[in-house]
């Protein structure tokens, strides 16, 4: 027993010698490192041996064969670039459409003095008076504005041209953006392609054709969406040549609507301006036609004096109200321009979103399968209880 005890002491002594303990740690590290090396090597071998899935991507006319990891990075980059495309497209379209809008609305603004001249002319004011007596003054004034201000300015054909040019320009810019995107992707991934690959079995993703598909798709949806949204727009456009009708976009529709709204808005501004002049309606304004009527009813004044007085009163009214009226008209025009600009921007971003959406859905098709309606989780106890409950 004693000897056994001694042996065990010796054993313990050796085992618990501090240097031996450190040797134990070192041995552990050694074993772990060895295992790590073995695993690493076998991992390498496994990776090299296994038929790592290769992806073929056609970018800018060039076929790249990428391994899975690079392809994942490529997909991420493509998604990112497609998301950036909207900003890029908007930035490229903005100066051009801004300039064109300025140009188109300059016509309208140029027509404002002429309209004001008519408005404050003798004929204009008497016509207003007559229409005011007949009743339907607001609608008549709107028609007049449409005829004398909008049609005379020639802004409608200018806007139509703008629509057509905008669609064409958008398509061009889109193509340019997409080409820049392709070039960047090619530049980035051409050096990372797998060199000696048998590409027959590789599933191909043709970026070029995807983009070509996406581009007309974007234009088409924009066209038809505008037709559907516009509703009455089709009727408005019916008389136009077919080419223009096809090129009409959401921008055009809302441009037209904005013009309609413009006519109405300008009228409202005018009514307000007269209300601020002291009385409720333009008809009974203290000067101008109202004064004439009062004068005719109560006092007998000479016609020449009447005319002279009326003219003087009219001039007075013009000097009093014309600046404010003109300012309102210009405000209205500015607002209409902003509306049209906004709808053009909307068309641009809708096209960009289409592009991004199309590319993203194509590039992630392999990864994300359409999720059917299925529960997210499986709970063992919940599932076991369920059939029992249904049996009962």
């Amino acid at each position, binding site marked *: 027993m004693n000897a056994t005890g001694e042996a*065990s002491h010796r054993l313990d002594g050796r085992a618990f010698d501090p240097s031996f303990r450190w040797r134990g740690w070192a041995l552990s590290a050694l074993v772990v490192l060895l295992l790590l090396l073995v695993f690493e090597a076998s991992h390498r071998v496994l990776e090299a041996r296994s038929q790592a899935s290769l992806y073929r991507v056609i970018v800018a006319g060039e076929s790249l064969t990428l391994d899975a990891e690079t392809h994942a990075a490529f997909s991420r980059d493509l998604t990112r670039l497609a998301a950036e495309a909207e900003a890029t497209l908007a930035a490229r379209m903005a100066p051009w459409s801004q300039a064109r809008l300025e140009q188109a609305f300059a016509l309208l603004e140029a027509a404002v003095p002429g309209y004001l001249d008519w408005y404050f002319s003798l004929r204009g004011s008497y016509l207003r008076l007559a229409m005011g007596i007949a009743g339907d003054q607001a609608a008549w004034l709107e028609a007049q504005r449409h005829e004398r201000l909008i049609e005379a300015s020639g802004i409608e054909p200018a806007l139509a041209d703008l629509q057509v040019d905008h669609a064409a320009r958008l398509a061009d810019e889109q193509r340019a953006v997409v080409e820049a995107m392709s070039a960047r992707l090619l530049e980035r991934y051409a050096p990372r392609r797998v060199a000696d690959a048998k590409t027959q079995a590789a599933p191909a993703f043709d970026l070029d054709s995807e983009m070509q598909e996406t581009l007309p798709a974007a234009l088409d949806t924009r066209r038809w969406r505008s037709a559907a949204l516009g509703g009455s727009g089709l009727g408005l456009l019916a008389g136009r040549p077919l080419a223009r009708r096809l090129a009409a976009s959401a921008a055009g529709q809302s441009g037209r609507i904005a013009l309609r709204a413009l006519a109405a808005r300008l009228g409202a501004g005018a009514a307000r301006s007269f209300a601020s002049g002291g009385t409720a309606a333009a008809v009974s304004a203290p000067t101008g036609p109202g004064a004439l009527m009062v004068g005719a009813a109560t006092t007998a004044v000479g016609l020449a004096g009447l005319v002279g007085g009326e003219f003087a009163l009219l001039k007075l009214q013009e000097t009093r109200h014309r600046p404010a009226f003109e300012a309102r008209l210009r405000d209205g025009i500015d607002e209409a321009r902003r509306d049209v600009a906004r709808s053009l921007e909307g068309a641009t971003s809708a096209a960009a979103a289409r592009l991004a959406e199309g590319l993203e859905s194509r590039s992630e098709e392999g990864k994300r399968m359409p999720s059917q309606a299925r529960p997210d989780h499986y709970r063992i106890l919940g599932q076991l209880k369920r059939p029992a409950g249904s049996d009962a």
Partner: protein
Amino acid sequence: MARRVRGRRLLHRHGHLFLAVLVLLAWSLASNDWAGVLFLPVWVLATQLIVAGSLEAARLRRRAWLGQYLRDDSPWRRWLQGGALMVLRHQLVGALLALVLLVDLRLLPLSEWPLLLAALPLLVVARNGLRRRLSRHVVAEHLPAVTRRLVTLPAAVLLALALVLAALWLPQPWLIGLGWEEAIARHLPGGEGRALLGFFERLAASAELTRQWAMQNAVERFHLATPVAMLGWLVLLLTQGAVAWAYVRLLVGAEALRREGRSPHTVTTGEPAAANDRETRA
């Protein structure tokens, strides 16, 4: 004041256990990059802890065998007392066990960690109780080692059972009606080719997914009765008991490694009983 002193003593006495668990917890919750960087040191640490425990148990067994069958003066005593070969074997097995533990810990949902943390005080309590009971029967010199050896199995079984019960509650991905490849493709986390650790994680995750896929579909397709299905799940989930087994062995090994430092002292001065008693009552 007294409480603080007690807390400090507690920390001092079981600090190694806290430290080991803390390292494991921090590592398994770390980001992928950090986990990859720290993989090697944590693996070495876990291996060393597991090996310390298993070597102690193995030496105990071997010594008992030698004392039982060999004559005192036999040279076999020296040859068989356990040398490089035994150490190497245990290091290898310990490294593999540590690897399984670490990879599984990486995949363990956070909601199962409370169980692992709760196992720590329970283990200490169980060990102390067992040691108090054994102190009347076991030679004082071997008391700690014997206690550690005896406490390992029940603790591991209990922890494994707890983990299995938790797994019954925890949500799994819904895999019914999916092909195996589809299930793997859809639910295997992150396809990025990180280093070896990522590979191991994917391997373990796909093994787990395969188990869940097989059992879910079997239950659903063959309309298994509840007891049968339950039995199937239990058997499948018990393979996860490896985590509990390795974890408890790691804790016990940390204990063994810590107490080893004191052992030569107690053995040579010849008052192990007093030292151990003190430890027991602590």
